Structures are given as structure tokens and as C-alpha cells.
């Protein structure tokens, strides 16, 4: 009886230690320059994840031995192996950082949801597995179907339609439901509309941002948000709002618009406070949850008790009582994690979520096509906002809004939509590779990129461009962008590529008298740049 207790304690500390190592690696890997180093880190992360997974389920098993648990564990291991290997083989250029973190979050979710209810966990797992199969196709779709970028109005109508349907369904059934039941499955459309909404906004704001267009986009976004507020889904409404604001800011590059948006938000928030009693209640329990402890404040009080009980290192899996928090596995999973796995683990989890977000942004930064760029940014923003709302709500940093912690909380729609979201971003990540690759095949673009690289890195101190004999041998052919471009006169060069609303600056730049130096230097540059690019494009592998 006592040996297992000691063992469980040892396993607990092992999980914490591995989590800390994993988290440190998930951050430091961004700084690793050599692809080989990165590959090693990613492989180590996989090993750590599998050990955490194993130890977590071992503790669960020791606490309540049942065969179901073994079977379930085995299936999740197979699933994880399948996901990791398949993604790697089907999409060798996918971001490994993103896949690793996604799997890690899923593992934490599997352990925690199973800790509450193995039945729920199995259901969750089935949805995740189905979603992953779907997700394997998504990068392909994103890559091949350019029409996705031109269905703006489709997104708008589907999004508003789905959200409206929920309101109507709720009216009919006379309840404040946020889900639709389709073929036995209960779906929460707002989870999926989040993605559609991002695409709609990206479509609206990527092509132009005239005053008229901004007004149209704002009205449509406001419509989404209004429907969500009416259906009392305040969490989703906030996510949509923040996402729109951030996308607007990046698309228009106009901080004033964003400030006006924030100002409008403040007015709307104050109005909502006085108009809707449920908003008032949320704010009141945020200010003093203990005033109405046994009533509305109960959930957040229990959440705080759970966090306090956990301390830095946690009580150990199955040794706390996070079940006292109502709806713990949906809305308060983070508090449950803090109670049983401790604040150190929780902080690591926050950092992993941040690493995911940074990867999203990183991808957005490297994309040339404005639509994709905005989409990646928007998806990243919905993700980060959701994480902030749920963790901030559970810790009473902000009023609680009742949204899930993506991939970790229990909730089929949430897991499914998040996996899809990750897959889309993976698709975009590979697309970024495509853009570069196509550019390489196009001499004009190559020249332009080269010039851009010069602009980007040329002034970096301590960076020496080494000429290489081999480079010339390998056929990095010298280019003469200046002459070619000059031949076209003043006209901007249209590229043949998808994102080609291009404006070729090289042509103009060349007129500034760089033609003479062009050939030799650009050749060397191309070579070095290629090496650099090859390293970079391996980043995800």
C-alpha cells in the first residue's frame, strides 16, 4: 500500500521535471540555428512527451486499476505515433514545433480528462482522432485550392448563418443553448465559425482597405459579435472582437482605427454591464466572488481554492479535489491542472501555448500573400485570446467567460476546431515554402528576393558574405535583374504567381545605378541565400 504511494510521488516529480525541460526546449528551439540541432531537440521533445504520457496514465492506473485504462492508453499512444509519423512523412516541410506542441497539449488533455472521466476522455479522443484524419488533408487543400482565398462572401454568409441558426434553435427549444445537435453529435458552431470568421475578415481586408471596405468589414464583424452576445456566448464574442481588431490593425496599419475600436469596446462593455444582468453578475463575482459564495461565486471560489491547494508542485494526480469546481473539465481545466500538477506545470503550459501562438505569428510574418498572412494572424489571435480568457478567468485575473483551454479542456467541438485550425496553419506554413520555391524558379523574383535579402541582412553587423567556388559550380547563375527590369520601363512587374499583386521594386532600385555591381555579387548572394533558405525551410522538420 505504501510502496505505490512513494512511487506515485516519484512519478509526479518526474512529470514536472520533464514538463519543465520540454517547455524550455520549446522556447530555445526557436533560437537554434542548425537544422540538426533542431531535429535533435524535436526528437527529445517527443521522447519527453511520451514519458509524461506514460507516467500520467501509470499514476491514473495505480490510483484506480482498470483494463479500460490500459486499452485507452495504448490507443492514444498509437494515435500520437500515427500523427507524428504521418505528418512527418506526408508533409516533411510541416512545422515540427507546431505538431509537437499540439501533441503535448493533447497528451495533457488526455491525462486530465481521463482523470475526471474515462468515458468523456474516450469520446474526446475519438473526435480528436477523426479530426486528425481530416487535418491530414487540410494542408493539401489549403495548398491546392486557391479558390479558398476568394470565397469571402461565402464565409460571411456561412458564418452568420450558423451563428444565427443557434439563436433560432435556442429560441425554439426555449433555452440558452450554444450547441446544435446534428446526427447525434452536439456541435458548438461558434467554435467552427471562429475559423470561418477569420477567413472572411482576411478576405475582406486583404484586397483593399478603403474606408468603405473597412466599414463593410466592421459591420459584418459586429453582426457576428452581436449574435454571440445575444446568445449569451460572451467568451466567443470577445474572441471574435479581439481577433477582428488585431486583423484590422495589421491589415490597415492604422493604429487610430484600432484605438477607435477599443474605445467602442469600452462603451459597449459599459452598456452591456447596465443592459444585461448576466454581464453584471459576471463582473460582480469577479470583483468579490465570496460575496455570493454559495450562489454565483461558487465556481470561481472553488477554482481559487483549487489553485491554492495545488501550490507550486501540486497535490499529485487524483490526490486533489478539483472535481469540486462545476464544469471543471470544460471551463476550469487550467485550475484543475494547477491543483494536481501545480503552478510550475501550469506556467509551463502557459509558455507552451505562447510558443504555439508565436509559431502562428512567425508563419504569418513569412507569408507574402496578404490573405494567408491575415488568416494566419487571425487564427493565432483567436487561439491566444481563448487561452488568455480561460486561464485569466479561472485565476480571477479577468471576469470569467466560460471558454475552453484549446486541446486540453474537454469539448469535442473545441478540440476538433483547434486541430483544424492547427492544420490550416500547417498548410500556410508549407505554402510559405511554396512561395519561396516558386520565386526561386522565377528569375525576376529571385533577383528581387535577393535584393530584399540584401536589404534585410546586408547591414547586419558581423555577418560576412563568403564567396564560394563551389557556389558558382553549383550553378547559382548570375543574374542581371537590372537590365531585365529596366527593359520594362516604369510598369510594376506582375508576377505569374498567386500572390502576385506584386510591385517590383527591384526594377526601380536598379535604375539607381546598381547595374554594374549586379552580376558577380548577386551570384554569390544567391548561393548564400539559398543555403540560408534551405536551413530555414527545414526548420519545421
Amino acid at each position, binding site marked *: 500500500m*505504501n510502496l505505490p*504511494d512513494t512511487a506515485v510521488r516519484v512519478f509526479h516529480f518526474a512529470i514536472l521535471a520533464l514538463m519543465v525541460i520540454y517547455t524550455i526546449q520549446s522556447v530555445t528551439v526557436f533560437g537554434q540555428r542548425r537544422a540538426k540541432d533542431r531535429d535533435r531537440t524535436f526528437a527529445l521533445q517527443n521522447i519527453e512527451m511520451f514519458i509524461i504520457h506514460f507516467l500520467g496514465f501509470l499514476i491514473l492506473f495505480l490510483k484506480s486499476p482498470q483494463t479500460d485504462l490500459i486499452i485507452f492508453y495504448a490507443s492514444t499512444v498509437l494515435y500520437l505515433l500515427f500523427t507524428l509519423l504521418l505528418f512527418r512523412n506526408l508533409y516533411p516541410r510541416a512545422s515540427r514545433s507546431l505538431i509537437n506542441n499540439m501533441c503535448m497539449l493533447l497528451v495533457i488533455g488526455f491525462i486530465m480528462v481521463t482523470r475526471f472521466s474515462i468515458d468523456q476522455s474516450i469520446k474526446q479522443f475519438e473526435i480528436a482522432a477523426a479530426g486528425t484524419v481530416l487535418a491530414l488533408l487540410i494542408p493539401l487543400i489549403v495548398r491546392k485550392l486557391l479558390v479558398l482565398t476568394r470565397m469571402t462572401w461565402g464565409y460571411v454568409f456561412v458564418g452568420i448563418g450558423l451563428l444565427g441558426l443557434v439563436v433560432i434553435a435556442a429560441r425554439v427549444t426555449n433555452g440558452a443553448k450554444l450547441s446544435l445537435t446534428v446526427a447525434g453529435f452536439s456541435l458548438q458552431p461558434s467554435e467552427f465559425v471562429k475559423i470561418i470568421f477569420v477567413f472572411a475578415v482576411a478576405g475582406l481586408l486583404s484586397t483593399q482597405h478603403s474606408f468603405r471596405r473597412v466599414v463593410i468589414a466592421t459591420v459584418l464583424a459586429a453582426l457576428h459579435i452581436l449574435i454571440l452576445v445575444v446568445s449569451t456566448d460572451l467568451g466567443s464574442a470577445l474572441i471574435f472582437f479581439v481577433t477582428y481588431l488585431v486583423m484590422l*490593425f*495589421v491589415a490597415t*496599419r492604422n493604429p487610430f482605427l484600432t484605438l477607435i475600436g477599443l474605445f467602442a469596446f469600452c462603451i459597449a462593455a459599459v452598456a452591456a454591464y447596465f443592459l444585461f444582468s448576466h454581464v453584471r453578475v459576471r463582473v460582480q463575482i469577479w470583483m468579490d466572488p*465570496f460575496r455570493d459564495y454559495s450562489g454565483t461565486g461558487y465556481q470561481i*471560489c472553488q477554482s*481559487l*481554492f483549487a*489553485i*491554492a*491547494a495545488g*501550490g*507550486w508542485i501540486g497535490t499529485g494526480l487524483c490526490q486533489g*479535489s478539483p472535481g*469540486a469546481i462545476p464544469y471543471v473539465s470544460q471551463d476550469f481545466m487550467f485550475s484543475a491542472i494547477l491543483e494536481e500538477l501545480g*503552478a510550475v506545470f*501550469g*506556467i509551463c503550459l*502557459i*509558455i507552451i501555448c*505562447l510558443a504555439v*501562438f*508565436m509559431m502562428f*505569428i512567425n508563419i*504569418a*510574418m*513569412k507569408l*507574402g*500573400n*496578404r490573405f494567408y498572412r491575415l488568416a494566419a*494572424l487571425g487564427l493565432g*489571435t483567436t487561439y491566444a485570446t481563448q487561452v488568455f480568457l480561460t*486561464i485569466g478567468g479561472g*485565476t*480571477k*485575473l479577468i471576469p470569467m467567460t466560460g471558454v475552453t483551454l484549446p486541446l486540453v479542456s474537454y469539448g469535442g467541438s473545441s478540440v476538433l476546431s483547434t486541430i483544424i485550425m492547427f492544420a490550416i496553419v500547417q498548410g500556410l506554413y508549407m505554402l510559405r515554402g511554396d512561395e519561396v520555391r516558386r520565386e526561386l524558379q522565377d528569375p525576376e523574383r529571385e533577383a528581387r*528576393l535577393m*535584393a*530584399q535579402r*540584401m*536589404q*534585410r541582412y*546586408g*547591414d547586419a553587423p558581423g555577418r560576412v*558574405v563568403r*564567396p564560394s567556388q563551389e557556389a558558382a559550380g553549383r550553378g547559382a547563375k548570375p543574374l542581371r535583374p537590372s537590365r531585365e527590369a529596366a527593359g520594362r520601363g516604369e510598369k*510594376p512587374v506582375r*508576377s505569374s504567381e498567386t500572390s*502576385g*499583386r*506584386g*510591385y517590383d*521594386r527591384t526594377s*526601380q*532600385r536598379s535604375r539607381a545605378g*546598381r547595374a554594374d*555591381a549586379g552580376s*558577380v*555579387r548577386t551570384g554569390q548572394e544567391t548561393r548564400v541565400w539559398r543555403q540560408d533558405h534551405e536551413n530555414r525551410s527545414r526548420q519545421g522538420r
Partner: protein
Amino acid sequence: MRTDPGRDDKKDIEVRRIDLNPKKEEVLTGRKHNMELSIAAWIFVLLFALLIGRVVFINVFESESLRNNINNTKADSNSENVIRGDIRTLDGTVLATTLVDENGNQTRSYPFDNVFAHVVGYASNGKAGLEAEENYDLLSSHSSLIKQIRAEETGEKVQGDHVIVTLDEKLQQTAYYALGSYSGAVVVMEPDSGRILAMVSKPDFNPNAIGMEWENLVADSSSSVLLNRATQGLYPPGSTFKMITSLAYLRAHPTDYSSFMWNCEGALSEDDVRITCYGDQVHGMEDLASAFSNSCNTAFAHIGLELDNSEFKKTAEDFLFNHSLPTAMQHSQSVFKLTKDSSAGEQMTTAIGQGDTLVTPLHMALVTSAIANGGIMMRPYYVDHIETNDGTVVKQYDPEIYKKVLTPDEAGILTEYMKKTAESGTAAALSGNGYTVAGKTGSAEYEKDGVTGTHSWFCGFAQTTEPHIAIAVIAEDGGTGSSTAVPIAKQILDTFFYG
């Protein structure tokens, strides 16, 4: 042929600036074009840092009070492995302990039966008092690791930590028996430290028999036996509130308060509200000091009419009316309702401590202590420290200043008035006992379900030169302060000074 790339680039950028046409779509994403993305990313990095900060903050600053929160039942699961610790006084008197018989059955025992009923509380049928507030510490063990592991191996339970309280057994006994059969409460505290020395609430119950009597205790809704009146009972303060009215007057007349003169004719009418002095006495000409020591209602009603309502309210709120008291003890908030638009009647009744004003005995003791302590209010507390079974101190609670609620000068003036009250005024029974007392009586009239009555109040401290003890007494339906509450206070003071 190589040129200096740096210089070349500068030229590049210049040209680029000229050519940059912001209205055109741009495909390439140089560093500059990522600025907005970077800003967005940094905002979220900041927000996430805030989340981490919040988690750290809870663990560093809030976790203790959350663990000890009265509603927190998380620690109860520890009782499977931990024997609930004792509650003891500083001199080692055991107020609550857990007895373990040969079969390992545990019973919670309270050696003093009813005497400490409310303040120590109970640990079955829910929890209350110290048993609830210190639940987490009582069920935690900081015994040496070796002992804990040994206990784990043998399957024995570990002895939980003991809670050592500042209550004084002798004073508590005196206060308990002095209050006698009255319903009401007594709070005794040290003005300069905030330590609670005694806390009695009646009607009471026997915590040893709480399991058996539970049904009756809960069913009896009229006398609310389980309520700790000392901290949660809300009473009209009656004339004891004149301490605060006087202060408000002092603040309104910082230079000429001593020229206050009032001719008491036994009654004062304004807007159909008639204020009379207690027992239809006529006090004649009075200055502020004699109006205070005579507890003259008409004089204070007159002051109430003159005072600016919002200034009056501010003074009351400085003394924490309408606010939580600075303590971990579960308590009710005192109420002061006067507003700008209050009628003359409300002004007069509020000034003499009637009206809608309500106060807890603990709060009155705190107000008295602040005056005794030269204006500095200490946080009231009754847990001195937590120690392990071996006597190692785990946590020590020290006196903490809450706030300076009045100036030393103001405190000095009020002390003079209160001294006069105890020498020649309504609390004159406290003079000539070998110690000097400053105090204020109160006879708080109430009406409940059509029945009227008078609660007997006394608030005071001793000695006047060097206050060591502050007392608040309320005896429900005890009549005037002089008749009931003052003799109770005298017994407590006698015990304190002569043992």
C-alpha cells in the same frame, strides 16, 4: 568586384523610401512590413506574462488566505492521514483537542464546554469559529519529515499542527459568567496590539454536544444560538456612537469646539421628530464634555442637525462603517446610512446612535481601541501562532497597524470626555477601583416585531494613561448601560487588574 554591402544598402533604402507608394499592394514582406505583426505579437506576449504573473501572485500572496478561507473544505480530505491539532491559549490551556481511543476512533473535545463556544467554534456538522478559520492549519502537519514518513510506513496518522490563540482563559471565564443569562456579547482586546483577549456570545451551546443538539440548534430560528454575536451580531450602537458624533463635531470645529454650549430642556423637536433624554432627564447648560458624559440626547441631536451629512458619513466610514473590518475573522459589516438628502429626523436619530445605524460588538471594541491607542487602529486578531506537536513555531502572527483613523489630539480629547464619563458620568461605577477608566455607556432602544426594548452598552478602556485593555459589552434588553453593561465591564476589569 565587391563593394561594401552596408553602404550599398543605405543607398538602397533611401531609394526605396522614395519609391514606396503605400497605396499599392505589396507582396514582399520586409522587416518593416512586419511591424504591426510584431506589435500584435508583443501585446499577447505581455498578456501571457500577465497570466504567469497572476499564477505566481496567487501562490505567493493569496494562497494562505484562500486555504484558510472559511468556505474551503479542501483540507478535510487530510483528516484521513492527520489528527486534527489542538487549539490552545498562550499559557498552554487546551481549548479544543482530539481524543484518539484504542481503536483509533477520534472525537473532538472542548474542555471548557460552553465558555469558548462561538470563538473556538465546532468541527462537526459543518465548521465554525477558529475550527473553521484555522481548518487548514489544524489539518496540516509540519512535523519532521522523518516522523511523517514513519507514520506513512506504519499507517499511523500524523499529529496536525496546533493553533495557539491570544485568548485569555481567565478573562473569557469572567466575561462569560459576568454576562450571565443575558443574550449579547463581550469583546475584550489589547488596544496597542489588536489581540483579542476574550470573546463571548450568548445564547451559547456546548460544542461537545453539537452532534446531539444540532437539530434543536438549527430549528431554533428566533434566538440564533449558533451566531457569534460578537462578530456578526448587528446592534444599534445607542449612545456609544456619540464617540463618533463627537469626533465629527471636533472635525467640523477644530478651534472652537470648547465653546460649544447647549441648554438641555429634556427634549428637542424638529420636523415632527421628538428627541428626549433618557428617563426624561433635563441636563441644563452643558459644554461638549458634559453633554458627552451625561449622554445628553438633545445636545447630540442638535449637533446632528448642524453637522454636514457627508462629512459625518466620512468620519463614520473612516472608522470602517459600511466597510469590512481588517481581520480574517468572519464578521458582519456595520451600517451607517445617513446621506446628503436625509431628513432632520434621520440626522438627529443617527447622531445619538439610533436610526438606521448598526454595529457589531467587535467593531465597537475596535473603535474604542483606536481611541485608546492614540488614533492608530490595529488589525484585530486572535491567532498568535501555529506550532508543530514538538513546539516548533510554523507561523507567527504579529500585531499589524491597520490605519491611523484619528489624530492623537482628537484621541486625547475623546479620552478626556470618556474619562469624565467614567469618573462622574453615566459610568461612574467604574471609578474608585484603583484603575482609571475611560468609557461610554449606551442604552440602545430597538423595536422588533412591535416589541420595544433597550440594549445595554458599554465601551471603554483602562488605564487612561496607559491603556492595556479595551472592552465592548452589550447585554440585550439589559436596560441602561449604567445598570447592566457597566457592572459586567467592572468584573472584567477587576479580573484583568487583580486576577
